């Protein structure tokens, strides 16, 4: 327990502190970008894109090894991941456009195919003599522990950029998510704004890959805004709330993962986020389980008082 407290207070060593701060930034940015994806009803796209990073990631490793004799070049790995995720995103668009297939069909197909291809490549790499040290598995479930200071700084800078772009385009993204037809008719191009949202998501995935892992990256985007939605009916409050939930999840999750042996960072963050969500589900005003039950009980009492004999349910 002391170890957890120490990690939370950034007092468990330099590396752990760096990773914890990096994860908090990532969580905050995920909450903001995720809020718009949630309201645009495109969160599942995150799952397709994050799984679609795998073949690019492994291919980049192979390229690095073939060309420079060293596969573990973070920049190259992330560029490969981004490229194959972008390809996955384009594949989703191409499958949906004009072919009368629903987007969830396209998303599921892209996810399965890309992840399958990535897994084949990964098992090939693991069969190589040097494969055992490749360390690519950490991109599956995330591992903030080995994060270098420069990497954490990169995450923080990119996360801050994501926040900035999101805030600059607050009104445009709100319009896109609420009424794209009205927006389009008055000169706010829905297709380009959607592309921009996709770009923000891609950037988020690339910086988040090492920390949360591609398997659970979805949670970073969907759970904080879903939690925030429980607490408020205003987008202006939902955004900061989602960012706070995300940052708290990142902070707590990374600290837990640093303090407890053999707990990968991604699942730790997801569990913390889920805990916050469940707390909201129970306690949130208006939408929480407690609030709804209280309201119904009050209503029933008012009815009993007004209509004698209404306590008995109708047969």
């Amino acid at each position, binding site marked *: 327990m002391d170890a957890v407290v120490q990690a939370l207070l950034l007092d468990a060593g330099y590396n752990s502190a760096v990773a914890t701060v990096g994860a908090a930034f990532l969580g905050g940015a995920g909450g903001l970008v995720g809020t718009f994806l949630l309201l645009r009803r495109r969160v599942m796209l995150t799952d397709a894109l994050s799984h679609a990073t795998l073949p690019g990631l492994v291919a980049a490793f192979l390229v690095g090894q073939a060309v420079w004799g060293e596969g573990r070049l973070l920049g190259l790995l992330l560029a490969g991941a981004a490229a194959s995720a972008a390809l996955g995103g384009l594949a989703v668009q191409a499958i949906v456009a004009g072919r009368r297939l629903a987007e969830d069909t396209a998303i599921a197909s892209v996810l399965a195919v890309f992840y399958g291809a990535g897994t084949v490549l990964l098992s090939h790499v693991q069969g190589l003599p040097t494969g055992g040290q490749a360390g690519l598995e950490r991109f599956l479930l995330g591992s903030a522990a080995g994060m270098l200071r420069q990497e954490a700084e990169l995450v923080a800078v990119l996360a801050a950029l994501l926040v900035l772009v999101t805030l600059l*385009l*607050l*009104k445009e993204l709100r319009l896109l998510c*609420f*009424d794209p*037809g009205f927006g*389009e008719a*008055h*000169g706010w191009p829905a297709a380009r704004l959607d592309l921009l949202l996709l770009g923000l998501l891609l950037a988020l995935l690339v910086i988040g890959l090492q920390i949360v892992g591609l398997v659970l990256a979805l949670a970073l985007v969907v759970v904080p805004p879903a939690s925030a939605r429980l607490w408020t009916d205003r987008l202006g409050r939902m955004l900061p709330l989602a960012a706070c939930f995300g940052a708290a999840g990142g902070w707590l999750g990374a600290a837990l993962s640093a303090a407890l042996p053999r707990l990968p960072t991604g699942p730790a963050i997801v569990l913390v986020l889920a805990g916050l969500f469940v707390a909201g589900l129970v306690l949130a005003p208006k939408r929480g389980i407690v609030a709804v039950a209280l309201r119904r009980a009050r209503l029933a009492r008012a009815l009993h008082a007004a209509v004698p004999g209404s306590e008995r349910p109708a047969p």
Partner: protein
Amino acid sequence: MAPPLQLVEGGAGLRHRLDPESPLAVSGLSVAYHDRPVLWNVDFVAPHSGLVAILGPNGAGKSTFLKAVLGLVPPLAGEVRFFGRPLDRRSGLVAYVPQRSSVDWEFPITALEVVAMGLYHRIGWFRPVRRRHLEAARAQLDRVGLADLADRQVGQLSGGQQQRVFLARALAQDARLYLLDEPLAGIDAASERVVIGLLRELAAAGRTVIAVHHDLESVADVFDRAMLLNVRRIAEGPVAEVLAAGNLARAYGGAVPLGGPVAAASAG
């Protein structure tokens, strides 16, 4: 500067040339969804002020007509001019009110914030919505009688109130031409009075209002002119002429929903 207008079949092609500055002049507009035609060679010229109804049975292409002139669905062919020019969406000359059912009313947004969207084109890219914009939006919300509900989440409003919020958003745009998709569908009587009153006010102020309308019985009470569509343009002109029995039979086939007021209108 103005490209040459093609002369197409029917009278609108001619009027097109006679009235090059019409708020909305459409010639030969054709649209298909996949391989099914929804609009076929439609001509239309809007008056410089007044209320025009777009009528026709379900699937006749009424909503598609509005979306196609705005470029929201790609046309197969045809020419569209607003005030003699191709559409400049950010000019603020044209306001569009989509169907109420086209958006998710559970969205975390207040009535006031929706109305403020009518000012976005004036605010411009990247700039925030400021207090003075919200005050301007509040004034429009007051015009539709909903100032008290400004801070309500839109899902808590009735259907009619939601429609009035949409209308307030269009009013905030202060446009010259208003294109409304079913503004009177499924709304309560009080909201209907408010909406019709404001549409008349716009027409009296020299604006043109074109609205998709579903209810043949009330057309004559609200609109000056109408276009009757069923994929092709069946008729266009003053409401009474358009609602002549022959036109309705052509648009609706055997099942003409002829009520008393329609018969009266077509007789008058």
